[in-house]
């Protein structure tokens, strides 16, 4: 299983801080497409992605137990 984390606007749109799904073997891009359809969340494509707290490119493949976080454009400071 994989934990998927949502923040900021994405979290409000999904209505949850996280979900658990089976995403191992998929690419980040594939996961984003699934999220877009499942939650009507086209903005997931404007987000960066972190796998296990490190930024990862769209073509990276998700492994079993990876934690995935979608990172909308940041605005700290």
């Amino acid at each position, binding site marked *: 299983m994989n934990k998927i*984390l949502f*923040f*900021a*606007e994405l*979290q*409000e*749109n999904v209505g949850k801080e996280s979900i658990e799904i089976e995403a191992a073997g998929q690419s980040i891009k594939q996961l984003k497409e699934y999220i877009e359809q499942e939650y009507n969340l086209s903005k997931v494509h*404007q987000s960066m992605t*972190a796998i296990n*707290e490190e*930024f990862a490119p769209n073509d990276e493949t998700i492994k079993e137990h990876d934690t995935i*976080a979608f*990172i*909308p*454009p*940041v*605005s*700290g*400071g």
Partner: protein
Amino acid sequence: MSRHYCITEEPISIEKTVSLVTRPEAGAVNTFIGTVREITQGKRTLYLEYQAYKSMAEKKLMEIGEEISEKWPEAETAIIHRTGRLEIEDIAVVIAVSTPHRADSYEASRYAIERIKEIVPIWKKEHWEDGEEWIGNQKETKAYAAGKPEEEDIS
């Protein structure tokens, strides 16, 4: 996680943050303090809400500290960022960089705030009288609307 790189819900003490980096070898400490500004692009903010991906954000703050140590080997850095609800004038972030000589402290501190706005997973939501919006920009140059574009131009 190091006391030098923290995400906290508590008010940030400038004094304590500075004391994390003062040492006999350093004659200069530059600090940057980000506070909640009332008026942004003509709109009056009532309060802000900061959210962070805490564990990753602390890692990224530490990474910024390591980048600074590579560029300015004698620098010592501390960065504390607050999350939760913040009122006008509240402190959102304190950066403190100590160096033996002052020019480096300015440059390294400036580098830190720019990097925070690029790579640290922290988000702010502005609350106004007529709406609210997650601010989605890395360098404070643009924002994207939060699903209520019809309210976007009220100011």
